[in-house]
């Protein structure tokens, strides 16, 4: 069965997107990413340390851009201008790579998206030729606005970034899925494997996570668990779950051909 995840015209086998922050070292980052099977990895853009550790290993050596699709983010940006500048730097850094993750944050306590600034930045980035995957609120109307601006993927939070609180509003995630014709990826909030499976069962096209893997006691094992959860959730979605029967049970074994009852039937 071919069930590719297609974003901005490019097909991927894995529907799990992995962040590269918060690992112990680059060796662990690489081991976790490989265990997850992810093909798309997010990276941040930061000032280089001038005059320090000239021979420090770099992330690009641990995860060669030839093997992984980089998704540079705008983490830490609180306005549209900073986000646009950051991604222009990313495109220069990554030799013209134009698939990016836009996130414009509202405040450091919640890291909730600032949607007016997100929309402004998305408009500018699309005009600049970027393919914009966008972190956003789980609001179907604004998701559609982002689609209309020309974004390539809608990535609502399921709960706060780094909180591990799981899929707090599955109804809104489904509203977003129904509102747009673009891939919808839950970005933020996944804490453990079942959360990832739930996101996929809702019909999401993918899940993006970082802390759930990096902050697990065994990040590499958790990465493997997430791979299975995303695959299981996707197959459950495609298989089509049974309808829920409220307040009534239905036996799984035949009612016919049972042996003679020893006592009269229960009332």
């Amino acid at each position: 069965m071919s069930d590719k995840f297609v974003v901005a015209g490019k097909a991927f086998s894995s529907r799990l997107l992995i962040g590269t922050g918060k690992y112990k070292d680059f060796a662990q980052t690489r081991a976790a990413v490989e265990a997850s099977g992810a093909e798309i990895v997010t990276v941040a853009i930061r000032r280089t340390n001038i005059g320090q550790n000239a021979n420090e290993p770099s992330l690009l050596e641990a995860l060669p851009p030839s093997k992984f699709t980089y998704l540079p983010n705008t983490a830490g940006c609180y306005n549209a201008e900073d986000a646009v500048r950051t991604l222009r730097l990313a495109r220069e850094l990554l030799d013209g790579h134009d698939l990016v993750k836009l996130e414009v944050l509202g405040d450091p306590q919640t890291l909730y998206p600032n949607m007016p600034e997100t929309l402004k930045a998305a408009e500018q980035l699309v005009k600049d030729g970027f393919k914009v995957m966008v972190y956003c609120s789980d609001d179907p109307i604004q998701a559609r606005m982002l689609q209309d601006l020309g974004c390539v993927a809608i990535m609502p939070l399921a709960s706060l970034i780094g909180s591990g609180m799981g899929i707090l509003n599955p109804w809104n995630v489904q509203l977003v899925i129904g509102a747009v014709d673009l891939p919808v990826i839950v970005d933020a909030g996944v804490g453990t494997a079942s959360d990832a499976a739930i996101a996929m069962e809702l019909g999401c096209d993918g899940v993006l996570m970082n802390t759930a893997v990096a902050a697990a006691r065994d990040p590499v094992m958790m990465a493997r668990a997430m791979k299975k959860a995303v695959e299981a959730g996707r197959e459950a979605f495609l298989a089509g779950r049974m309808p829920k029967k409220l307040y009534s049970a239905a036996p799984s074994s035949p009612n016919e051909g049972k042996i003679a009852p020893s006592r009269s039937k229960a009332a």
Partner: protein
Amino acid sequence: MNYTRGLSASVSFLLMIQVIVNGATHRLERPLDVAALVARLELSGKRIAVERNGEIVPKSAHRTTQVADGDRLEIVVAVGGG
């Protein structure tokens, strides 16, 4: 005496430029292009991107873009992040 000292101070002022790189002030001798600045900061050959006064300086233009007094530069790399 005072006159000479004043003159040499202003000559050296004319030869030196002050730029801000990643938020820190650097006093450097001109003329200086972006490639030379990158070399001075021991970043040659590293995978970096440079922004000068809010505009990207493409790698192809590092040798032809002069750094001027008062410029603000950002030099970035990719790091781990979500």
